[in-house]
């Protein structure tokens, strides 16, 4: 297609770049917490550090290599294709939600699958990042270890303040709430980011959570704990807002976010604090399209009445 009209400077490349920049602080913190500190304390050898760096190189190069192969298949200019590909964003998210200690082979297969599915997935609106992470956790069974070596050797008590700044057990790069909130503020500066989703999901999470604690008269009122020490915030800020798998109509976004907040609370409480939100996002991604279609039908009907 020939360029006839002016286009906004905020194009796909810009959106991808924004997402990558927002993820970098979390990646660095993940390295600091799970590799650097543990190495400093002499709990891991330099071979393990090298292995971790190799792992990061894999996370960056695999999407680029797959993009190059795919651009050849599609007969497109490589640079154009890479500029418009979300592969690196998906790859980084996939890395950040992995447990700090994982089986490298399974991790690598998962990464490849994430990349391949992101290319071939056309009609099925299913959040494959959540799907693959959950499959890996099932495959690893008890081998998915969330505490890093330092956390598993000592009995550490983290208060809410510690947890807010990332000192808590969790996935590789999802624990630092402070950095996630900064990234959220950064992403919210742009129009493309669906900022309403994390905000409404959080409100819904609290409303539903507080109601739950009041109704069940649960003695351990731990709503802030549920909010901060799980990967809820990371998942709603980065995964639930991936534009392919989230609604675009206003009402659709509200419905989706309310369901996301409420169901996440249930999932965190009764299924798993690490995978609960991912299960909810996976299920909701399937109903995103029907939600948008229904909202459009309703609004069209209302407008034609007016």
């Amino acid at each position, binding site marked *: 297609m020939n360029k006839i*009209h002016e*286009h906004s400077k905020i194009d796909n490349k810009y959106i991808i770049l924004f997402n990558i920049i927002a993820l970098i602080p979390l990646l660095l913190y993940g390295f600091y917490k799970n590799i650097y500190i543990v190495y400093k304390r002499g709990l891991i050898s330099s071979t393990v550090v090298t292995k971790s760096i190799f792992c990061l190189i894999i996370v960056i190069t695999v999407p680029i290599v797959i993009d190059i192969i795919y651009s050849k298949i599609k007969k497109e200019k490589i640079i154009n294709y890479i500029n418009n590909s*979300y592969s690196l964003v998906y790859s980084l998210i996939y890395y950040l939600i992995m447990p700090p200690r994982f089986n490298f082979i399974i991790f690598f297969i998962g990464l490849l699958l994430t990349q391949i599915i992101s290319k071939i997935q056309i009609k099925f609106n299913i959040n494959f990042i959540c799907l693959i992470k959950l499959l890996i956790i099932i495959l690893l069974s008890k081998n998915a270890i969330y505490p890093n070596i330092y956390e598993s050797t000592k009995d550490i008590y983290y208060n809410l303040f510690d947890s807010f700044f990332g000192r808590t057990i969790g996935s590789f790069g999802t624990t630092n709430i402070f950095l996630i909130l900064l990234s959220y503020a950064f992403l919210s500066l742009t129009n493309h980011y669906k900022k309403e989703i994390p905000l409404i999901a959080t409100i819904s999470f609290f409303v539903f959570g507080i109601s739950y604690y009041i109704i069940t008269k649960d003695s351990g009122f731990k709503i802030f704990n549920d909010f901060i020490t799980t990967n809820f915030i990371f998942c709603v800020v980065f995964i639930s807002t991936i*534009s392919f798998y989230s609604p675009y*109509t206003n009402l659709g976004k509200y419905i989706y976010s309310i369901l996301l907040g409420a169901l996440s609370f249930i999932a965190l409480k009764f299924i798993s604090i690490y995978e609960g939100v991912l299960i909810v996002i996976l299920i909701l991604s399937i109903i995103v399209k029907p939600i948008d279609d229904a909202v459009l039908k309703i609004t069209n009907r209302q407008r034609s009445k007016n």
Partner: protein
Amino acid sequence: MGQIKITDNNKYLISPTLEEYLNPEYIYIPTYQNNQISLKKNEIIKKEQIIEGNNNNILYFSSISGNIVGFETNYIKIANNYKEEIGIKKTPLKDMSSLKPNDLINMLFKLGVKNENNELLGEIFKEHKNPKYIVIKCFDDDPYTENAKFIIKNHIEDLLFTLDELIKILEVSEAIILLKSKDSDIITKYNSILGTYPKIKTKLIPNLYPLNDELIKENIFRIKEHKDANSLILSIESILSIFTSIKKQKPITDKYVTIIGNALEENKVVKVKLYTKVSEIISNCVKLKEKDVIYSINGTINGKEVKNIDEVIIDFNIKNIIIRKKERIENRKCINCGLCYKICPGHTNPKSINTQKCINCGICSYVCPVNIKLPLKGGKL
């Protein structure tokens, strides 16, 4: 949302001097099918002579003097004799303010005066009888076009005079001159002269796109009563046309056109004769720095691509000519970001468009990060 703020105002720097191309070799007056033409080949034509009229009394006046050299499909071709001979000389109207609103409307119809959208001004005045406000847009609809700026620069006193007369004819309580806050040079010029016109006020609005009549009302009137009031919104070009046709008693024969694009050595505003071929203007007024170019007209954001530039003739509705370097852009799969839906001023879904609500502003296509050509008429992604 409904509008975007254009921040890259200086993307197309336009030459500060106005170029004139008022001596075309030929002009091409449109004709209507089934309309009997009384003119013959080689017949001498005077400037401002009525050439053609259709059943709806839309008149076409010759913008040059010369002789008919041929009858092409849909056009009468007139060769210029470069003498600018005028048939019947009319004296300017002495007291314009003594006209009654109906006289004004009739005169506008008689001279076939049209606005920049090819709508008869007489029709617009008829629709807005007894307006409470007159709002004058001192900017172009397209954010990168600067015809209005040059019209103001060259005719500011005529424009204010006409507006003052219109206030008296239509008994309007207030006229608002609407300026974009980016046009600081025009604002200064207006403010230095406005003191003598107590009923004319200026208002500034940000550099927003699009700005149709409804969105203008939304932006300038805070109270609902004012928004709903009968406001006559006119462009600065229409005011100039009223001055020429009513005060000077002459038909409109020339027009300002912006020629811009990344294939040009210099972007400029050119004053041209109506019914000149665009290709003739291009070859005489601008230098192309690219060989492989694409032409479009009437909007850098929502314009139409022109396959054969030789077929385009300057009419009232030609505002700009865009000449771009031929560049391919990949049309990718929709990423479901919803920006087009969020921003649409017609409150429609550009991905499965309701044609009745679409205002053809092209803003959906402008914001689309994957360059999908929106709106998608009748289809879904």
